[in-house]
């Protein structure tokens, strides 16, 4: 059963039972549905969750899908903590610039950790839209480095 089918089935269960909210989690699949009717008093979803609460979004790889407003873009994120360099060597040209097209194997930057220069690859195909970090700046694990417009397949 596809996830959409599951959602549909859940909604009919909700309607039958006059539920206002349902949340299920199976392994890595999580579904949460909520109904609000006019005049209904309901939570603004996360309103009761203070800003300090942890949001656990695990990244399995170095590419991150951006939320709604940027649905067409993805980000290349840092796979380690270290110092970000745009070029392979001091004085050399940057590995990539805005407007460059990259593919899975394109080296987009270098991150130095413990005197070791680690190449970071794009791991996707697309166009570099933005570079978030300046040359020589420190980056942490999971930090966004580049914004990329993926190539349509």
């Amino acid at each position, binding site marked *: 059963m596809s996830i959409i089918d599951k959602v549909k089935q859940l909604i009919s269960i909700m309607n039958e039972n006059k539920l206002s909210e349902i949340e299920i989690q199976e392994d890595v699949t999580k579904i949460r549905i909520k109904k609000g009717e006019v005049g209904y008093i309901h939570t603004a979803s996360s309103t009761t*969750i*203070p800003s*300090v*609460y*942890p*949001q*656990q979004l*695990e*990244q399995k790889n170095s590419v991150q899908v951006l939320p709604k407003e940027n649905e067409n873009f993805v980000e290349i994120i840092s796979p*380690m*903590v*270290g*110092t970000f360099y745009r070029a392979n060597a001091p004085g050399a040209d940057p590995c990539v610039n805005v407007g460059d097209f990259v593919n899975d194997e394109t080296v987009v930057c270098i991150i*130095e*950790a*413990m005197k*070791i220069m680690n190449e970071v690859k794009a791991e996707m195909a697309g166009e570099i839209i933005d570079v978030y970090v300046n040359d020589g700046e*420190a980056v*942490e*694990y*999971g*930090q966004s480095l580049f914004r990329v417009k993926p190539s349509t397949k």
Partner: protein
Amino acid sequence: MFSRIMVANRGEIALRIIRACREMGIETVAICSKSDKNAMYLKQADIPVCIGPSDAEGSYLNIPGIISAAEITDIEAIHPGYGFLSEVSHFAEVCESSKIIFIGPKSEVLKKLGNKTEARKIAIANKIPVVPGSESVVKSQQQALDVAHMIGYPVIIKASSGGGGRGMRVAHNDISLVNSLAVAQREAEAAFKDPSIYIEKYIEDTRHVEVQIFGDNYGNIIHLGERDCTLQRRHQKLIEESPSPHISERLREEMCKAAIKIAKAVNYTNAGTVEFLVDKLGNFYFIEVNTRLQVEHPVTEMVTGIDLVKQQIRIAYGERLNIKQKRVRPRGVAIECRINAEDPQNGFRPNPGKITLYNPPGGRGVRVDSHVYSGYEIPPYYDSMISKLIVYQKTREEAIACMKRALKEYIIEGVKTTIPLNLELIAHPQFASGNINTNFVENLLAKNQH
């Protein structure tokens, strides 16, 4: 004093160290994994740095990541807390070669004492009683049987690189020894990447008593009295107290003297704990040295009035010990209960999840060391300990009464915890009498099931 140090740990102990630093006016860099990134305690650090994914291998045990973070944040020293890299001599070595001060003993001391067979040899050489057993690593099944026959059953199999009670097994005869041996080696390999094990006489009806030691870089070594950690479940400490209700004044003095002897033998620096078994006749046996801050350090802080973490930092900075041995006069009684997110109904399985309501106890005599709060999500990747509840009173009777009321006040909703177990233990007449041994908890749990 240092102007900026890194806390290479997580949870309550990271918060404990950050608190000490704030009070000392030292900036802190706190490392974290992806799943701890938004933990509230990190807001108490000056610079939080995410260094890796959720699994500890990639984050809290990731030496290159930690050193890299140290370099970019320009810190002078690293406090490793307990667990994770705190006793890893290689990590201390890397720090030393990176000109970062490791807040703990020197790497060669970690190496020497980290190997229990080595530590045992040092104790024997210094005429400290040890539990009869294999003098070194047991390499074959036959050797294990020979040792067992020599010292007599029951025996206990321990991992050379083990700690925290993991990798220990008791055997009562040849068959169980042969079976346990293979399992223990596999477990040791999995847990510590070192399958070496050794065998000791298993002493029944034992108490677990440990001595807190402190050395500076100038050869001064003192002890801060003892802690009693007899209340354990599967070799995991549950309730600790100081002073020990089990030992005489003379035994206390002898053990403290022995602890200092061992520390002097290796030129021990910074905080450490020398662990002993005490049998019912009042004989004591050296077990091992924990070359780091202990989980249960607050009980020593309460009775001595000394802040162990601040003391560690001062000594690592190169200050001399400013406490004379004879001025260490423990007073009162402190008890600590570890609160774990575990389900007692399900074999104490860790119970991660969201804490929907958290209301710690307060008032006179109560100290809570915890990083959790209403809404905190306990990640499933790490230790299940979420809080330490410590009480301090003039007498043991008052301390027990205070712990009872504090445990009853403690509200943690959303996950199962060991609060009810702690309450049962602390209210047990046998605990009050002080007449317990290291099997007390398991015997009680077994009885509860019938």
